[in-house]
């Protein structure tokens, strides 16, 4: 499974970006840079990642730095999948 591609699809869908999200790179800034990513969207994103990828996110994991960029989020998901 290509984690980053899967992640971009989920981001694009959850934030209703209409395909724009599929062009994101590791360096694309998320939190604070994308207005659609409010607290509601962060929770939806976490839930969708849990449901689709079968990972479990702990309350401790919900941290601003995790959602800073596509790269930080991909690393976080990758770590969960590898765990």
């Amino acid at each position, binding site marked *: 499974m290509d984690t980053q591609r899967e992640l971009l699809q989920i981001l694009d869908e959850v934030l*209703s970006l209409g395909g724009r999200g599929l062009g994101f790179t590791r360096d694309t800034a998320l939190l604070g840079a994308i207005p659609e990513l409010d607290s509601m969207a962060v929770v939806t994103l976490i839930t*969708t990642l849990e449901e689709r990828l079968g990972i479990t996110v702990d*309350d401790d994991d*919900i941290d601003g730095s995790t959602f800073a960029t596509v790269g930080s989020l991909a690393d976080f998901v990758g770590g969960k999948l590898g765990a």
Partner: protein
Amino acid sequence: MPEAAKAGAHAARPHAFFLETRGRGRRFALHHAAQGQAGRVPPRAAIVHAHAFGEEMNKSRRMAALQARAFARLGLDVLQVDLAGCGDSDLEWADIGWQDWVDDIAEAAAWLGSRVDAPLWLWGQRVGALVATAAAAQCGQLAGPLGLLFWQPVLQGRQAAQQFLRLKAAAAAIDDGGAKAAMAALRAQIDAGHCVEVAGYRLPPALLRGLEAATLEPPPAPPGPLLWLEVSPRDTPELLPASRPAVERWRQAGWQVQARAVGGPAFWQTTEIEDAPALVDASGHALAEALAERVVA
């Protein structure tokens, strides 16, 4: 023909009213009467809708309305009810418990069942599926087996509650605050029996605890037909992995289960309001099929 279509559209408008509960105030309700080509017809089934929870309900309003109208055009009666504390219904969030929602659906089903001579169905979306399941246990003994239609059901109320409380953690994370500390403070408040305020909702412990205890297991009620529908954005839609064992448990309990996923966006949580027309079509087809099987049986 455009004139006739216009007249038809007008006739299909739902009847809005307040449903009187037994001593628990009024609930706002929309009754969509079964429509034939020339107006109202005797319905082939009577369906009560149990909506989703919190923001998911708001985002699903449009799809629920589209589906209710589509059902009416298929000759089915639909009753949409705003549960206690939601929409224009009575009671403040701080005053409701989980059992209020279950009673709301059971009483709505009794109301519709007493007016319509047709099989009764409960249609629950997300957390609404948990409410419908509990209500089925409560009113299933009255009128023989009920039918159930689930839209993307929540399997564990505990997960839905956690998601809701996480809004607080997410807000704290965005503000660079301590998400963990925010969650711990919330939990302490709930354990102490206080209401907690999340995303503008004032949640009482009686609602949270009931939600957390709810699971999507076959209720102690006569088994009937169960239509389990999910939406998936994948090219080849399939049920969520967690749903499969749950579906199997309903089958083993004697329910006649049709479970499938159709393509479409997760409209109950997307940032923009979106439509999933394939879900509306699939719901109509599956229900018509289940009703036809009933007649043959």
